């Protein structure tokens, strides 16, 4: 009965993620178009309309690029390498075995030569998926714990979480880049030179400034909102796959005890990882700005199973 439940949840999650993907692309296209329009108005009154196709084109290109090549970008940025044939047979066996249990082709395996224990999955669907694990994860965890972590990551793969996470990562990056660029151009006097005698000009500059400051924050909040509930779901379906929740719980405990930060991770890629790789997360705005649910809560839910 429990297995039937999990299968249902997976199909639900896949459908939800399909909508999320569409919603994300529409939303980011909207944000970029608004940014483009306002920028156009600031630099040449009436020029906003001309910027709209450029903004649309830009968001189209970055969405397409992240859909098809984002996984390679993320893997390269994390300095992940393909293991030599015969290297890490145990990891390979675990990935193959659990993939069979889910009825998917085993994802490509990547290694990150870093002693901090962590892992992530990326790609656009189960046929184009990769799993990267750090050296530290392989060294510090035993077989059942490793199985728990891999099962968690494989759940992200089947649920199509990887696609949403990938799009969010790259699109948020694009928005951040653009508003950064806008702020810089204001700094060396976009409005100042010609502002005074033009009535509406001042207003539009204020709007532009507000947009440039606010959009990256909004974008980040969207990114965080999609990422936390998903971790609980992946923990649950991962535990169901291995039929052994204590394995994953014990892996989480070991990773929580490990104080080392993962050097190859950054703010953009942090939400992809199994556990928050940036150990210096700010405590003040905890609820709002954490990329991951608290590990203690994840362990508690696993132990309640």
């Amino acid at each position, binding site marked *: 009965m429990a*297995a*039937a439940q999990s*299968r249902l949840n997976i199909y639900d999650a896949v459908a939800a993620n399909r909508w999320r993907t569409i919603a994300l692309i529409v939303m980011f296209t909207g944000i970029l178009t608004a940014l483009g329009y306002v920028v156009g108005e600031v630099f040449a009154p009436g020029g906003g309309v001309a910027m709209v196709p450029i903004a649309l084109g830009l968001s189209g290109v970055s969405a397409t690029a992240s859909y098809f090549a984002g996984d390679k970008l993320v893997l390269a940025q994390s300095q992940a390498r393909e293991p030599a044939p015969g290297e890490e*047979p145990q990891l390979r*066996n675990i990935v*193959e*075995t*659990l993939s*069979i*249990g*889910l*009825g998917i082709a085993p994802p490509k395996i990547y290694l990150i030569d870093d002693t901090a224990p962590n892992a992530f999955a990326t790609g656009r669907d189960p046929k184009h998926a990769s799993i990267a694990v750090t050296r530290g994860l392989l060294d510090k965890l035993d077989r059942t714990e490793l199985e728990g972590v891999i099962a968690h990551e494989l759940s992200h793969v089947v649920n199509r979480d990887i696609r949403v996470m990938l799009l969010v990562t790259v699109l948020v990056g694009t928005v951040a880049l653009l508003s950064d660029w806008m702020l810089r151009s204001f700094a060396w006097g976009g409005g100042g030179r010609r502002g005074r005698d033009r009535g509406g000009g001042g207003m539009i500059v204020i709007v532009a400034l507000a947009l440039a400051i606010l959009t990256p924050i909004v974008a980040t909040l969207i990114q965080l909102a999609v990422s936390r509930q998903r971790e609980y779901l992946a923990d649950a379906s991962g535990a169901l796959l291995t039929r052994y929740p204590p394995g994953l719980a014990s892996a989480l405990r070991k990773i929580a005890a490990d104080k080392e930060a993962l050097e190859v991770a950054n703010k953009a890629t942090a939400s992809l990882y199994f556990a928050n790789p940036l150990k210096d997360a700010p405590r003040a705005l905890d609820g709002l700005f954490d990329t991951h649910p608290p590990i203690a809560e994840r362990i508690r839910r696993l132990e309640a199973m």
Partner: protein
Amino acid sequence: MEILIPVIIIALVVAFIVGLYNRLVTLRQRVREAWSDIDVQLKRRHDLIPNLVETVKGYAAHERGVFENVTKARAAAVAAGQTGTPQERAVAENQLTAALRTVFAVAENYPQLQAVQEFKDLSENLTATEDKIAFARRFYNGNVRDYNTALQTVPTNIIAGTFGFTPEQYFELADATEREVPKVSFT
């Protein structure tokens, strides 16, 4: 205008039936794909066994009965694999598992054998294959359950009856293993 309404109704009914029919076909296809996963792993296990027998024989030549048993069980499993239903295959595979256990039980008495790299690789491979069989079985049975449930529930059961969809068999390995007493013979 009056003619249009019945036409629309008929078109809707036909579309509904086509949808249900296609759903059943998809579910049945999933069962078959899952079955081929099991098949691949079972064949892999069959391929590993002769090597294992040869390796262990090198150190325990006089345990002839054990080797004969496992070779016979393997032949039966291969034969069941070519013609058998899931149930027949499960029975044969189950006997093979029991026979394999006696090989490993015998091997435990030979410390030199335990140290041989080839034996270590073989037993790691066989363990991994058994794990894979277990997971493939679970996935297959899940798909069978989805398909069989669809055959029995309204409204798909009407379509299933009309177009002759028949239920698929589960692959019950674990239960059978528990019931089966391994035939250990050290003659």
